[in-house]
């Protein structure tokens, strides 16, 4: 295997738009659920590269455990999707060297109940030194905020996330201006720090 950065994502589809009567039946799936299922299938058939995504597969045990916490609607869809659908799987080759190379980044994608009308929430679960990711893992992407449109899909989101690694743009409203500033004035130093972060926290 050639050396490449990998981006690994686990997604968490959620839906609470379905009323009590619909979620009791295992055959009926709400509009957002159907949409997520279709997008996963689409990802499966035509995967972008260097990325891998899948539902946080759940067994009954976890379903019960999380149900006790009170978000059963949310987990219900995880169950449905896991039983019926394949894994999302994408892989991007990094053409040029990036300081994130060799790292494996875990991301959580949570779909809101009114998806696709609201964007999914993407959070890094692995520490990363990047001006578009803050110190608690929130990622700043235009298409995940005001730029969101119901026409966008998970695939597009994954491609956009990959782009912050391959083509970082420090001028476009960075989440962490300090890092963006360092990137612009002393890219070598920025890359050195970012590579050290990759080595320490993302291996």
């Amino acid at each position, binding site marked *: 295997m050639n050396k490449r950065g990998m981006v690994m994502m686990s997604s968490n589809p959620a839906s609470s738009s379905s009323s009590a009567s619909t979620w009791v039946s295992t055959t009926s799936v709400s509009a957002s659920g159907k949409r997520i299922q279709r997008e996963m299938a689409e990802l499966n058939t035509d995967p972008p590269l260097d990325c891998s995504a899948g539902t946080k597969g759940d067994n009954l045990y976890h379903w019960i455990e999380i149900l006790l916490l009170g978000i059963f609607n949310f987990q219900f869809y995880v169950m449905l999707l896991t039983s019926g659908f394949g894994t999302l799987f994408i892989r991007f080759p990094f053409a040029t060297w990036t300081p994130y190379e060799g790292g*494996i980044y875990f991301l959580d994608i949570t779909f809101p109940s009114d998806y696709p009308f609201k964007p999914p929430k993407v959070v890094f679960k692995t520490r990363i030194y990047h001006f578009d990711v803050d110190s608690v*893992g929130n990622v700043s992407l235009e298409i995940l905020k005001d730029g969101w449109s119901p026409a966008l899909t998970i695939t597009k989101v994954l491609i956009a996330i990959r782009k912050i690694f391959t083509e970082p743009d420090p001028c476009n409203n960075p989440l962490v201006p*300090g890092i963006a500033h360092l990137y612009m004035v002393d890219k070598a130093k920025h890359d050195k720090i970012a590579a050290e972060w990759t080595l320490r926290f993302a291996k």
Partner: protein
Amino acid sequence: MFRSNNVVARLFQRQICTPPPGTIVHCARRFYENLVPSHTIYDIECPDHLFRKFTEDGQYLVCFSRNHQELIVYRPSWLSFSCKDEDCDIHDLPPQAKKFDSFFTQLYCVSLASSNELICKDFFLYMESNQYGLFATSTTQIHDAPAVGGAIQGVPSIEKITFHLLRLEDGVVLDEKVFNDDFINLAHNMGVFMHDDLLAVVSLRYQTIHILQIRDSGNLVDVRAIGAFCSEDDELFLNSNVPTMGVQLTENNVENGLHQGLPNSSNYFLSGIKQRLLSFIFRGIWSEETNHALRAQNLKRMFYFHFQDYVDLIIWKVQFLDRHHLLIKFGSVDGAVSRTPDQHPPFFAVYNMETTEFVAFYQQNSADELYLLFEQFSDHFHATSKNSLYLNFISSHSNNVHAREQLRSLKNKASSSSQFVKKMLSSLPINCQSLSPSPYFDQSLYRFDEKLISAADRHRQSTDHPIKFILRRQPHALRFKIKPGPEGGNADSRAKKISSFLFHPFLPLALSIQHTMFLQPSAVNIHFRR
């Protein structure tokens, strides 16, 4: 070739023959077939202590007071008495000799527990090279402790756990190490493993493996903490880089109104060790298959489907394999506390703490692989330090043909292979210093009922029958018996009796302690060679 078992014949034999190369110690140990603790003094008059164990070099007998406050250390000494008659050997021992004091000399008694702490009677580790002892005292545990400050939900809390490093020679406390509001499994040394001068302490509550070093100067020094971070300077590195981000963070929070106050970033990210584990598993599945579609299938089946399970795994127990490698057992929170391993099969991983990388990961499917390693190379799991001589002779199924035979028969008897593997692996990672190095437990010398007695430091249900030690070699005769409890048996045979055995590492001397009921003085017998 005929060989006499007579001790005199053996001594002559030793004088005139050189044993085959490399067997000198084994040949010398055969003298233990002649020198046995066959004489018993029943119910000896002795102080009412909790007898813990003989140190591995046989220098000390470690005891705790009944009230769990004091440590009392004895030096084993050989019985000597004078006799005026001509053939003393026929006579019974004089009553003055039948005392605990004629076998053991008290060196000192020190108070370890302070205020509301008590000594953990099941915890004691001995560092042979420096004759240092490690003891623990703790307050009582709180079962429904709230999970605050990054603690794991469902793990009990102990307000204060103190480790005391003592110089056993004179009982001086050299150093102490305190863990506050934490949970360390102290029973049978489970939560702490000593290898040479290194200690691995598992904080179940904060999911951290604290690596400490015992310096020759008698100090306990923190070497590293594996958990939230992997390298010892990761946290420092993070803090030195974070200010530029911190400012932005608070602004961001105000903007979103998401968090009140400064959030603890460790709750948001995977812990250092979990990141390493998940990426190790992921890489393994990823590189196993080159075909995209098949790889996607494998990832879905083996990774995403179990992703949350992997994230929820907690460290149960740890042992050193050598100075760099740790064998870590992962499992669910329930299993760690309730100790019902049946429902939750554990996961094993080998972690190199120097390179901060996982080297191997064994789960249900690959448990057989780990078992085979354990069967063939069991001695490697008992990482002994360089200087402990006796520990090299503890029988195991990889160094002793009889022990292996026994394991085989157990394996054949087992109803299913997976159940057997699970049972065997449940002893891993092994408890530190839990086996007695006494030659009487050497399975190439003696045969005995493992249900009633063994090298493992455990309490056992006792029967009224004496425990027989039968020679492994010709003439396969009964050599000596160990009988715990009063000579004539117990008056109340229905009462449940628990006994424990302390064997001296090399002298033909053993203590058997039988407890009948709580708070009742135990019956102590001394077994020795007269």
